[in-house]
């Protein structure tokens, strides 16, 4: 599904390398987790994959089902089926959540040559998905993320994911700032979307989210590289011993 090879990325504005030869392959139907200390480049990876400005790829490739991602505009990547749940979802005053979601869904469908969804069908679809995430009608009517609590913002990201039905989902610290109940809601939302046709890359600083979203593979990232890959037990190791041992081991 997702294949990243020898990815080197620096900031556009300055000569600061952030990703330094990252290799990662996520297979269809699998859930991979990336764990790593703050500043290791996890968010940068998610931004570069989804096409944010300000970064320069100096070497390497990233493909989604064989299609080169790095040469595409962000909206093209989205229509190809890539989705990033943001670490910090953005507030957009004056644009209703429903308008935003419907515009996004129809833009993607149009790009794929599919028919647009009617207002009625869309409403039904969103209501159904919102219900399981405990997102009420009031929240759907409000401007995008404006006045939402931290937990509401993260649930809103998962709602967007559920409505847009991407094939490759990247979740950047979706657990940060959530209490246990909110985290369970979010994890349930993600688990409901697990399918043989879809893959997940779950970025997290802590192991606790992985108690709820059981990963197939766990990667440890440090200083712009994947330094170790293993099964779910790797996450427990980090939980017990922190990153220090792992980092020392590599050096």
């Amino acid at each position, binding site marked *: 599904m997702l294949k990243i090879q020898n990815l080197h990325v620096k900031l556009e504005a300055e000569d600061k390398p952030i990703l330094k030869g990252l290799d990662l392959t996520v297979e269809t139907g699998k859930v991979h987790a990336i764990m790593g200390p703050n500043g290791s480049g996890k968010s940068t990876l998610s931004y570069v994959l989804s096409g944010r*400005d300000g970064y320069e790829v100096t070497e390497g490739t990233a493909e989604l089902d064989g299609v080169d991602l790095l040469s595409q505009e962000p*909206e093209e990547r989205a229509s190809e089926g890539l*989705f*990033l749940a943001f670490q910090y979802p953005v507030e957009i005053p004056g644009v209703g959540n429903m308008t*935003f979601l419907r515009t996004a869904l129809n833009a993607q469908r149009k790009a794929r040559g599919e028919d647009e969804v009617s207002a009625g069908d869309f409403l039904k679809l969103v209501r159904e998905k919102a219900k399981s995430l405990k997102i009420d009608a009031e929240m759907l009517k409000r*401007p995008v993320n404006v006045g939402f609590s931290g937990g509401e913002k993260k649930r809103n990201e998962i709602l967007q994911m559920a409505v847009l039905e991407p094939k490759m989902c990247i979740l950047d610290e979706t657990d940060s700032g959530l209490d246990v109940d909110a985290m369970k809601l979010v994890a349930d939302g993600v688990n409901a979307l697990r399918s043989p046709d879809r893959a997940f890359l779950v970025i997290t600083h802590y192991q606790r989210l992985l108690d709820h979203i059981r990963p197939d593979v766990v990667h440890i990232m440090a200083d712009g590289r994947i330094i170790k890959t293993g099964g779910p037990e790797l996450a427990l190791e980090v939980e017990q011993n922190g990153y220090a041992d792992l980092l020392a081991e590599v050096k």
Partner: protein
Amino acid sequence: MATEAKVLAPLDIRLARAPAGGFTSAARAAAHGRLVAMGLPGRRDEYWRYTDPAELNAPAAVTAENPMPEAPLSVSGALQIRFDGGVAAPLPQSPEGLDLALLSAADTQDIHWAGALFGVLEGEGQSPVKRPLAALNTVLATEGLLVRAGSGSHAIHVDYSIGSMGSDTYLHHCIRVGEGADLTLIESGRAGARSNILIEVDLAPGARFHHVRAQGRDADRRTVTHIFARIGAGASFKSFTFGENGRLTRNEAILDIRGDHAVAHVAGVALGNGAAVPVLHDDTVFITHGAVGCESRQVFKKVLRNGATGVFQGKILVKPGAQKTDGYQISQSLLLDEDSQFLAKPELEIYADDVKCSHGSTTGAIDETALFYLRSRGVEKDRATALLVLSFLADAIAEIEDPDLADQIVARLEDWLGLGAAE
């Protein structure tokens, strides 16, 4: 003295053929005197530093090019009144409680209710800031609407069209809304190649006045407007203006709050694209609080691209004794490129101690983070930009009370953004 004579020179031609008038004659003569004393505006005047009035001063209008066909706003249930190049079509029948007349017809009489307004509010509004183009209007305008809403609730839609491509239009409207009456005034279209429109509004205690105008989408037009309002106790004045492009637009609102617990809102959205012809859009507002417990609100937003210039000059004056005043002013511009500019001069002058006044002005570009967020969800760049423009304009659009008119304005701005066919 040499410079003064030069500034007045273009005036002489127009003043020489100034109409005498019937009930307006004294007001016209007084305005004539004021104008000669003031002279026409120049770049050295404090309130004309950002906007060059030369094309408004010139003796004749420049012929307009490339007119764009435009549908007027559609307003159901409103009385339709048309001015073509400043010439009025016959008036419709006035309903009960509403008194309608054309200035040209009424001005054959020596006595008329509008005599208490015509040139009077304009004259009072000449201090502390002089407004020569308003005095010029009082001298020269021979046409306009005289509207008196005595009771009930009424809506009037004034639909302007250009007439000839060289039309130079002066219109002077007088409006009085009586105690407890409610009047909605909608204006749409461009009134001339060059137009100078003045509205005097007198609101009795408890009167309500709503004003929405869309000033046309033609790029090649020069427009100056003034609204002078006198607002009585407990009355409500709300005015919203939508402007697209335009070589030169100067909209002045001079609101005088005289009675306690009155409300005055003035808002505007201007979209300027300087690609075809240069665009300058200027909002100049002066609100005087002269009573207790009144609220005023100014919300002005401009979206500028391809070298367009936006100007905002807004003042709140709180007179001694005008306690519990709540004055709010915001002016913001969104620059879609680096060639465009926004010049703002917000002012507060307060002589009462128990007041709440705020003003703010910002200039900014599209928020890159928000743009990326939208695009990452699959929304194309242009559409995402348009959504963010709508987001920027939201609190100004919210000043339009009628949802149907608000929808029409939003449709026009989506059109301007190149999204006419979307959704």
